[in-house]
């Protein structure tokens, strides 16, 4: 097997202890379920001096009810989220997305926080040290060129998490702890359209909770994922949709988010603007498909091709809108 780099492991028992460690150590990585981080460590994509293993912090697990939100602890596993009857009932889009991550054993390990903070992916990047060195590395790690868009200084690595688009459609936000205290950030402001920066999270911060507004409870939801193998595979294109129709059959609420086709998961707000208050027609479906396809800018970062991934985005938007609004 490829070996691990060497680091020290820190195991805080509570959030304040975790924050102390974060304040003290600069070159540190947070470890939750480890299903993404450990692979990346072996590939020497990260060579931290410290690994902060937060798995032992009991407070960060489970689902709680607040005044306006339901709160999901960052360490809640994807298996739990996908199988929890309450989540399935009120946030079906999230349960479905969580249930389609990887395969069952990885869902048992993987946490929701880790899923949100997944590193962006590109087949020039998710490789061993030897491999990357053989082609002189790339912008995202250790190098100064992009093999996908040579000449550019921008990284197109695709954000490939499944739950983030679902959470975006539910208008979720995240709670972040840092040495200064706590803050809450809307998820849509968390992500950054840049394969290297990825998201707004400082190295001394951790996510503690995911907050989903009660206002989003009860929306119908679908999550559609294109991958080669249903047994286990990252999304190559994914669409999350949450919404509902009113008594007259008009669209009352609709939210469409894409994943795996850009360096960040994105809401296609134009579709919301287009559809709210209207009855879904074939023409509106076509227009929505076009809007989604325009938003999706997959680059040659995976073995599947750009046109096909974009095509699948369209297919999914059509299917999803028809399932929810018709």
């Amino acid at each position: 097997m490829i070996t691990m780099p060497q680091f020290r492991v820190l195991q805080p028992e509570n959030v304040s202890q975790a924050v102390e460690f974060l304040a003290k150590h600069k070159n540190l990585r947070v470890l939750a379920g480890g299903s993404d981080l450990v692979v990346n460590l072996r590939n020497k994509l990260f060579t931290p001096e410290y690994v902060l293993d937060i798995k032992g912090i009991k407070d960060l697990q489970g689902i709680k009810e607040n005044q306006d939100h339901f709160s999901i602890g960052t360490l809640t596993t994807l298996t739990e989220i996908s199988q929890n009857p309450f989540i399935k009932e009120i946030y079906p889009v999230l349960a479905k997305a969580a249930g389609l991550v990887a395969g069952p054993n990885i869902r048992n390990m993987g946490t929701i926080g880790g899923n949100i903070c997944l590193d962006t992916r590109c087949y020039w990047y998710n490789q061993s040290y030897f491999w990357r060195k053989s082609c002189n590395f790339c912008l995202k790690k250790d190098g100064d060129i992009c093999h996908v868009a040579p000449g550019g200084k921008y990284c197109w690595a695709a954000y490939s998490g499944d739950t983030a688009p679902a959470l975006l459609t539910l208008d979720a936000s995240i709670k972040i702890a840092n040495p200064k205290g706590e803050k809450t950030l809307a998820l849509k402001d968390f992500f950054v359209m840049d394969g290297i920066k990825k998201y707004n999270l400082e190295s001394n911060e951790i996510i503690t909770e995911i907050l989903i507004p009660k206002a989003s409870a009860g929306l119908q939801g679908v999550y559609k994922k294109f991958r080669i193998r249903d047994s286990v595979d990252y999304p190559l294109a994914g669409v999350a949709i949450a919404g509902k129709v009113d008594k007259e059959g008009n669209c009352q609420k609709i939210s469409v988010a894409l994943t795996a086709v850009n360096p960040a998961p994105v809401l296609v707000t134009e579709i919301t603007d287009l559809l709210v208050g209207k009855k879904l027609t074939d023409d509106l479906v076509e227009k929505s498909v076009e809007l989604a396809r325009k938003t999706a800018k997959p680059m040659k970062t995976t073995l599947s091709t750009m046109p096909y991934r974009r095509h699948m985005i369209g297919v999914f938007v059509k299917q999803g809108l028809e399932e929810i609004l018709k």
Partner: protein
Amino acid sequence: MSQEYQKTNNTDFSVIGKSAQMIDGTAKVMGTAIYADDIKLPGMLYGKILRSPHAHARIVRIDTSRAMALLGVKAIITGKDTPVKYGILPIGQDETALAVDKVIYVGQEIAAVAAITEEIAEQALDLIDVEYELLPAYLNADAAMAATDIFIHNDRPKNIEKEYHHNFGDIEKGFAQSDLVLEDKFSFPRITHAAMEPHSAVANYDASGKLTVWTSTQTPHYVHRGLAKALQMHPSKVRVIKPFVGGGFGGKSETFSCDVCSSLLSKLTGKPVKITFTREEVFYAHRGRPDQSVHIKLGMRKDGKITSVYVKTIQDGGAFCSYGVVTILYSGALIAALYDIDNIKFDGYRVVTNKPACGPMRGHGTVNVRYSFEVMLDRLAIGLGLDPAEVRLKNMLKPNTRTVNDLRVTSYGYKECVEKATEHSGWAEKRDKLPFGRGIGIGGSHYVSGAANSIVRGRMPHSNVSIKIDIDGGVSVFTGTAEIGQGTETVQAQIVAEELGLPLERIRVIAADSDITPVDLGSYSSRVTFMAGNAALFAARDVKNQLLRHAAEVLGESPEHLICKNERIYVEYDRERSITFREALISALEHSGTVIGKGAYTPPSESQGGRFKGAGVGPGVAYSYSASVADVSVNPETGQVRVNKIWVAHDCGRALNPLAVEGQVEGSVWMGLGQALQEEQIFTPEGLTLNPSLLEYKSPGAIESPDIETIIVESIDPEGPFGAKEAGEGSLAGVIPAIANAVYDAVGVWITSLPITPEKILKELNKQKAEQKKK
């Protein structure tokens, strides 16, 4: 040892034909089985290998001094320490364990480090300085054949490893007599075995100068030969042991750099050394199915009779010969042994390129040509308005024939395979009758049940088994065969148990240790059940005859009238008279000590093929036959294919262990499914494998598995042990065209390159739509 085959009219079996759990299964399921990487010896060091980042380059300078200075590093070797060339084929001695002078593919071994931990060994790799002078890289067969001055191997001008031109009958005459002739070009990507366990070797060169190597291999005997040669040691000083092996599928059929480098590092340091490849390194070791183009032309009369076939095929074999000459010959030779065809012309080219070396992979050599052939057969059938299954039945060989290229076919159950597969799948009710988007297709295939000629030509038996029985009453079966998960040890135990009339648990198999067990050529060409099975049968018969002599004395009967069954020895015509097996054993032991017997199998010369150049490859001592029917759904909006069910009827002669046969057939379906729909190795323009991981190399998982119905066809081979033939490879090649032909039945498009991806289907569907609009 006499080679009298079992009289097959006897079907009153106790162990044979019964589904038996693998005798080594419990250890695997419980996690107690010891694989090469599980072995830890006192003082053991860990080895790591530095690999080339370039596809083709001269090595100007290697400086290991910085790496050597790293604390914990014990030894480093480079190409100058591994000058001796080796290779699996006598005509392909073109490899060294570490590159000498130049590198010829990305991932080629350059230096090996031994250190006290794996981490230190890996860190040391980064401290080895290598200076290269780049050479032009040839990354596909066309580019390689167009080379004019710089060649990958100096003795392979135009980078052609070998070309063969075979011409049997008169194809032009055949085409002239045809009512329809079609031709097309098919292309196939390179694919790999993806065995669960990576290659791994532990070497211990002890103070007495004896080398012991535990290695994950399917051919311990060839590794024994390879190591002795590469290390220039007397073979008696080399001991090769095969521990549990986690799959091979062809990918572990020769000596690998981990074997040679761990041995040399152990010799240098005086400590045991382990080298286990990472998954990525397994992709560089490769030896999988080559990238291949197949140009095929097929003629048919309107009654469905095949008239002529012409095949021109080019294989991009990668950097070394490996089994390549065999691969290209199989591509041609086995065109002849499935259907009755009078006229066959074959032009085959095996080309050297700057990519990891290809080698044998399940269905070795036959799969891509078989795909092309079976798809063309459907097209001809459709073109002539015939039923594809009927067309296959129209072209059957007869049992006990010699084909146009001098292959000896003995038992032949293909007809029954086609009949059973179509019957079970409801072919007649479904073909052409399913709604758009759903389809059913058929594909046929076959494989040698043991190559009749060994790799190293000679008159030595191909399999040897010896048996020892002592006072404890257990039967020790010593065999050189390599159990790699397919059940060779179980099947030999079953054969011995049956012959001696003992329950299976009385038999223990001691296998694959060159100091202890007799030579067997290894687990390749689906030879083990047939050849080692026969050797085990002959050995069992040898000890049985010894025991019967003593039983005869006690019973006052002649030994010919005695039979072994239920742990007793009976007088056949008077079952009232019997003694226990144990009584006979004690009597034999008292008379002359430990009961020892042996058996050996050598293929009959009639099976060994014709006289023309290249005739040595293709002859099997028998052939297995198989027909697959696939039921698929194709989503016309996305192009995605879902295989709903596959029926496979496989002729394995006699199913010695039906459970194991089903396991092999199901494995073949999965492997075929992967090649049909999703597997493909992809390279960067510089020759670096883009997807060297099981995440990005898309072998199907359990969820992708369709329902599989295995139908066992028993043609009872006259020479196989109890009539058995192979079950491990023959079905694979039929599965892939069955899927392609079903896709056509579903949506009316032909895909000429594998894998059949959703994108390719969509593209064809769009073309189809555009054409319909024009009309």
